[in-house]
């Protein structure tokens, strides 16, 4: 262990730790402002906002010798004996000068700029800036240009941190962004005819410290200070990026990645980022119903608790199809539920959507071809209840041999065609619990509207056997019920459905999930790989 001094405070640093001045200061609770530094990108030390004073402390004498010149904290390693001073007059003046310099030509667009409220230029102005303008007054320009389908550029707001350019060169490896010209005339741009169109493009908007880069999907839709942020997990594929779901009054406006070094570093792909619109699609199912003769009649959720168990107990041979979109908790409850009606109920894995092949980017970030979040989790629940994993094709082809089949869905895209639905229909009682209409929904006897990822609490296990827990962000449309809540109540459990309680039981009951006992950290928990890897 070593000791680093930050503004007189002594901070410990591990022998193996490679931290810079910004990171060690953070540990001391000190913010070193910066624009261009980002741990996921190369260090350029060009914004000069993170300038600090540094020196060394003699281990024996305790004497401190400081360097006469300022250094950027981002490029200065913290070592045993390092001394950092971030609050001297010299540092404050240097910072204020950088801030003032950036504001000389920056259009004061705050009232019309998306970034207001989460803009570093704003924040640092209030904390570290000069009080009033000293440079000449010039009418500000404000131009806008689309760089591609997902990102738009307000070039005049740019502070030349080059994070976006470095991202496209180092992380996505696509190099669409460039700096044009030289000196104070520099601007970010794309080459005509070669737009910004890689699958990670949305990340540059997160990276932009100011409002120069705008997200076309989010542009002008909501002020950031009205939104609540909820920790979630992207359900677009089996990577399971950690995200925040940002909403106001039950409308989701934006998804953004959370840092998780074990899963997605700092990034998420565009498909995941912009893949939330289905939550508010007007085609969502909101009316529970039952088929009587040739017609659908409304079904009260409140009556379900009474009628369904009686119905199912008397039905006979049951099968349950567990969608890989259900959470671990929901999969567990569903299995319990079906087995409570029929101790021999067949439990199978629902449709696993696969599109294309896995795509890995130069930084290591991978978009998986498996477009669901919890196949691994559902599989392990199935193994526990049935000793193995059976795909639902078996049930489909043998539908007539079952008296009742309960299918869970929750897919964003089509997952069942007319033919398959026709086969399923061979069973006596078909229950479909889903988000969107489908051929199966059409012919179901009992129709139960389910919810979207942003509306449920629960956990998912990604491709690397990491379990992460997501929080609900918005309430489901009236008429749709969280699957976990439905199962919980049908099981006769007291009180409200709390996914954490169920997860604790799962961790206790199923060895694979043992590591998920206790509170789940924001970045999830690594479940051990199963002893015997299942054959696919």
């Amino acid at each position: 262990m070593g000791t680093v001094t930050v503004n007189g405070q002594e901070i410990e640093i591990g022998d193996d730790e490679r931290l810079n001045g910004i990171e060690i200061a953070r540990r001391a609770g000190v913010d070193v402002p910066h624009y261009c530094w980002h741990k996921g990108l190369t260090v350029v030390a060009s914004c000069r906002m993170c300038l600090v004073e540094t020196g060394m402390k003699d281990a024996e004498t305790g004497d401190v010798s400081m360097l006469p010149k300022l250094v950027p904290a981002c490029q200065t390693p913290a070592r045993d004996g390092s001394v950092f001073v971030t609050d001297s007059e010299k540092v404050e003046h240097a910072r204020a000068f950088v801030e003032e310099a950036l504001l000389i030509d920056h259009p004061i667009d705050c009232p019309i700029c998306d970034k207001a409220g989460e803009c570093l230029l704003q924040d640092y102005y209030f904390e570290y800036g000069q009080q009033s303008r000293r440079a000449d007054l010039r009418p500000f320009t404000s131009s806008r240009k689309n760089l591609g389908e997902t990102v738009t550029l307000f070039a005049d707001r740019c502070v030349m941190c080059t994070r976006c350019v470095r991202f496209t060169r180092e992380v996505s490896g696509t190099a669409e962004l460039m700096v044009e010209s030289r000196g104070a005339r520099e601007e970010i741009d794309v080459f005509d005819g070669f737009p910004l169109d890689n699958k990670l493009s949305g990340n540059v908007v997160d990276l932009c410290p100011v409002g120069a880069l705008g997200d076309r999907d989010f542009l002008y839709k909501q002020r950031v200070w009205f939104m609540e942020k909820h920790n979630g997990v992207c359900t677009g594929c089996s990577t399971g990026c950690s995200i925040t779901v940002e909403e106001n009054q039950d409308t989701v406006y934006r998804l953004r990645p959370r840092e998780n070094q074990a899963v997605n570093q700092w990034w998420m792909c565009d498909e995941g980022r912009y893949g939330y619109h289905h939550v508010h699609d007007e085609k969502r199912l909101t009316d529970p119903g039952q088929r009587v003769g040739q017609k659908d009649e409304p079904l009260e959720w409140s009556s379900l608790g009474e009628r369904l168990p009686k119905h199912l107990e008397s039905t006979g041979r049951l099968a349950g199809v567990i969608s890989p979109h259900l959470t671990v908790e929901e999969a567990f409850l569903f299995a319990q539920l079906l087995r409570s009606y029929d101790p021999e109920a067949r439990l199978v894995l629902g449709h696993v959507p696969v599109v294309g092949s896995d795509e890995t980017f130069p930084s290591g970030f991978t978009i998986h071809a498996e477009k669901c979040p919890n196949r691994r989790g559902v599989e392990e629940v199935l193994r526990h209840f049935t000793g193995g994993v059976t795909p639902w094709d078996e049930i489909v082809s043998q539908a007539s041999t079952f008296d009742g089949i309960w299918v869970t869905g929750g897919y964003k895209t089509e997952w069942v065609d007319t033919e398959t639905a026709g086969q399923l229909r061979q069973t006596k009682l078909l229950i479909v619990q889903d988000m969107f209409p489908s051929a199966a929904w059409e012919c179901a006897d009992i129709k139960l509207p389910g919810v979207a990822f942003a509306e449920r609490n629960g956990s998912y296990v990604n491709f690397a056997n990491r379990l992460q827990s997501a929080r609900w962000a918005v309430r489901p449309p009236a008429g749709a019920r969280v699957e976990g809540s439905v199962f919980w109540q049908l099981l006769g459990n007291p009180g409200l459905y709390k996914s954490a309680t169920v997860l604790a039981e799962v961790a206790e009951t199923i060895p694979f999930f043992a590591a998920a006992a206790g509170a789940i950290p924001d970045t999830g928990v690594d479940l051990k790989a199963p002893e015997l890897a299942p054959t696919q």
Partner: protein
Amino acid sequence: MSTTERVLTDEMVDAIRAYFSRYPDKQAVTLPALHVVNEALRYVPRQAVVEIAELLELSPAQVQDTLTFYGYFKQDKPHGETRAWVCRSISCALRGGEEVLEHMCEKAGIKPGETTEDGRLTIEFAECLGACDFAPCMLANKTLHKDLTKETAEAFLESLD
């Protein structure tokens, strides 16, 4: 790209390829490639940037990034048959360089950076041409014109006709 008509001739491509063995990395051939094209065409149109990028296994944005850093390569249309760089740095300015530049521009009817209608002459200002012993001076294509005066500048303009 409205047209995919190739701009780089086989000759230019061969010339660019000849540089590959000099560097461990193709990106290093960017400036030499730009010069090859610029010398042949008197500018580097955007289509050429796309083709150079292909040859060098870079994105067009990477080549354009480098190109626009320097004020040397025009992109919209060729510069004049004669490109006259008139120095405006301190040693030339002290000996009347700015006045000569202004005079030349007036006589030629163009501003620095512009090309005459007939395509014969582009006047540019240069930063220190490194010929301060002959200030004020001008580099016209490959010829250094020394000890420029308004008169000799005018004579130079006339010599282009």
